[in-house]
């Protein structure tokens, strides 16, 4: 493997790993803030206990999202310096704003939330988590706007003298149509992820024999809240995914969608592939089961419209951009696309099933439900990873679509350096994943803190000179 392949692997490993934690942070922040607000409104201890329980999961998860986020920001310059030099005028600004507007907000107010239980008035304390959650969403917007620009570059002019992209309209970059649809898709995906975690963990406790009756009631509330979140999020994910599919097929990256459907030849009307097995070099299908006309409808909204195929697009791009391979890895795109959709829909179905089983004060004990509850939190994690792999690998060979190929963006560094960092990061991420999972399972097994443990002492009088509370 050369510097390019190693750098791509490192970017992929870091990004997919980072994005295991990010959606949980985004969605769970809002759910924990909501639980705390429910406690303040109702005065019912149940919500405080849930706040503390899920708040602990939030902090365990946040730590890894935070530290891998530093790598995310640094690796553009470290591994993709030619890319960074080309696009810094445009791509750098959202990253800088993400740090200034969002990272400060998240880190500062989460610090206040974790350490401020006794220092802050209750409403102010609750506000800290709402602000943290808002910070995570703001952060997502900036980084998604940056990514959307790579997918569909707008608002810039290439400067021949400096060989850099110059900003023409920041408005166009920040309100890129690709981010306007990508952002709700990712945020809804994050709510789906966090809702699934809350519902799955809660359901496991509801069905566990040793959970006390009062805790079953509390967890039942969490299960309902989580499952409703998943269901609502699933609807938004489907709607925004559908719109994005149409945008990309007809305008931005028809090649990505052709690869996602393994549609090798332009067709009018185009059939939808239920199962396609391609030949080894990925240029034609050797076996397929299709639904006539469905792809035309999904991709364009019309049952009769044309959808462009991989081979035709390859020919078209060769003429437009010069000879070269413009086809992404079709099997990866095809299967990750399906994996993403399947994982999301299954999570939605389990949420629906959960809501049905817990209707009107019911607290079921069913083996099937237990299995579903354990699987549920993992499904969106898979779906998120598949989605990113599909959209990023589907953009290949471009790093900035139509402008710079990934191979041109890589740093002038040695393969040995990248191999070393890839090995170090992979081992470190692996070890931290084991530790994080261990802590998560321990915190989950421990169950709800008792009402006494969860209790928040009255705010300390201002005259004290010292603070005898240790949180860590």
């Amino acid at each position, binding site marked *: 493997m050369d510097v390019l392949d190693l750098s791509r692997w490192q970017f992929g490993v870091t990004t997919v790993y980072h994005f295991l934690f990010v959606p949980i942070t985004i969605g769970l922040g809002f759910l924990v803030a909501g639980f705390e607000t429910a406690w303040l409104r109702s005065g019912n201890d149940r919500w405080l206990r849930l706040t503390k329980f899920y708040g602990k999961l939030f902090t365990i998860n946040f730590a890894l999202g935070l530290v891998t986020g530093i790598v995310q920001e640094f690796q553009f*310059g470290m591994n993709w310096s030619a890319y960074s*030099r080309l696009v810094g005028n445009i791509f750098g600004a959202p990253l800088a704003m993400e740090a200034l507007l969002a990272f400060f907000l998240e880190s500062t107010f989460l610090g206040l939330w*974790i350490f401020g239980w006794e220092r802050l008035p209750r409403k102010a304390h609750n506000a800290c988590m709402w602000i943290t959650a808002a910070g995570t969403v703001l952060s997502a917007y900036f980084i998604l706007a940056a990514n959307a620009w790579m997918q569909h570059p707008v608002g810039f002019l290439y400067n021949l003298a400096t060989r850099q992209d110059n900003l023409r309209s920041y408005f166009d970059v920040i309100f890129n149509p690709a981010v306007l649809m990508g952002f709700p898709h990712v945020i809804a995906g994050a709510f789906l992820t966090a809702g699934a975690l809350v519902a799955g963990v809660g359901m496991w406790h509801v069905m566990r024999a040793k959970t006390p009756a009062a805790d079953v009631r509390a967890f039942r509330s969490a299960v309902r809240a989580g499952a409703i979140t998943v269901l609502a999020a699933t609807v938004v994910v489907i709607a925004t995914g559908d719109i994005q599919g149409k945008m990309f097929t007809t305008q931005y990256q028809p090649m990505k969608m052709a690869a996602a459907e393994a549609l090798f030849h332009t067709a009018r009307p185009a059939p939808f592939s239920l199962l396609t097995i391609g030949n080894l070099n990925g240029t034609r299908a050797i076996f397929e089961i299709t639904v006539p006309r469905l792809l035309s409808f999904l991709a364009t909204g019309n049952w009769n419209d044309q959808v462009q195929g991989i081979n035709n697009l390859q020919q078209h791009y060769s003429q437009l951009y010069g000879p070269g391979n413009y086809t992404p890895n079709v099997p990866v795109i095809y299967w990750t696309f399906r994996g993403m959709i399947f994982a999301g829909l299954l999570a939605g179905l389990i949420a629906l099933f959960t809501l049905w089983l817990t209707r009107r004060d019911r607290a079921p004990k069913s083996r099937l439900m237990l299995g579903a509850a354990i699987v549920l939190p993992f499904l969106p994690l898979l779906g998120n990873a598949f989605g990113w792999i599909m959209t990023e690998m589907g953009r290949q060979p471009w790093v900035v679509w139509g402008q710079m190929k990934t191979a041109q963006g890589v740093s002038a560094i040695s393969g040995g350096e990248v191999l070393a960092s890839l090995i170090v990061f992979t081992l470190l991420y692996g070890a931290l994943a084991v530790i994080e999972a261990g802590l998560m399972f321990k915190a989950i097994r421990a169950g709800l803190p008792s009402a006494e443990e969860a209790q928040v002492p009255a705010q300390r009088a201002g005259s004290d000179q010292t603070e005898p509370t240790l949180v860590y």
Partner: protein
Amino acid sequence: MHLSDLWFIAIAVLWAGYFVLEGFDFGVGILLPFLGRHAGGGAHADPASGDLQRRVMINAIGPVWDGNEVWLLTAGGATFAAFPAWYAAMFSAFYLPLLIVLVALIIRGVAFEYRGKRDSTRWRAGWDTAIFLGSAVPALLWGVAFGNIVRGIPILVSPTTGAERFTGNFFTFLNPYAIGGGLTTFTLFTLHGALFLSLKTTGDLRKRARRTAAAAAVPAIVFGGGFLAWTGASYRSGTTSGAAIASVTCAALAAVALAAVAVLTRLGKELPAFTANAVAIAAAAASLFTALYPRVLPSTLGAANDLSTANAASTAQTLMIMTVVACIFLPVVLAYQAWTYWVFRKRITAPRVAAGPVTVPAARAPEPEPEPGKEDRRHRGLLHRHGSGGRDKD
């Protein structure tokens, strides 16, 4: 003044802010194994109360370290946006040192959060090591990196693509001047951490932090003074005369501030000493950045390969938007970060019965501390004795 000059200043301010803020939490991490022991020390040391001391130290920086680290992310993002060529050349040239820093920051960040989540001595000892290494390594390497930036690194600008290529290797960075820079940041941050702890803790820990600060001031003055003098003597040839004067002035200010730290520490003036050290760190950073100006990354392979505020900057349009956003939001950020420090302004003390996620079993709980009021008086007493003291040096 061009916008690119303004952004050079902004990035210098962000790095200075990062060093002033994260400097003390690096210092607390470095001191963790040394100050996080019980008063008796040696064979009489009670492991459980040593753990309690370490928890006090970690809780002292707990609410703020993460926000402090965001200054680094903001500096990185601002460099990317305002000087893409600088960001690209610097981050790829410093590939291996940055890898080491990233690994250190990863294990450190996780360690703070995970240390208390399991009640096991081995578990916590492991994370304590992670906090120490994760603090000590970046504290050293940031200085090495900045020494190399000021000194210049071997980079070549390609005439065909305009891209910069680093022609050195890892050992290029290990020159005496840059190592001097590393020792400067390491000793300054250690001192900063000791001063912060003297300001934020009580009892025995506070006393020992103060003694450590008095001791740490000496190497900080030696290395910091030597490094800045070397900078002034050797590495300002490429700057404008105005910047050279500013650099020497900042170095002198840093030296005066460090001398003040030494005096104030001995006088037991904790807040003024900490403030003076913050000034010293900021002035030292300013001295390095002004020694660079108008270059941002000098090349040792001829001035034609230098990156400067002129040839590395983004266009005026990008810089203008960034300026507007920064003018609106930076004051807001500063306001709420300052508010956090206000909320957590009180000293941290070990609770009589440890509360929180890790419950120290009652049998291992520390001996009760005196009443807060009495304790304060005891400290004033200690202060007077301090000159002749050092009776129980551990």
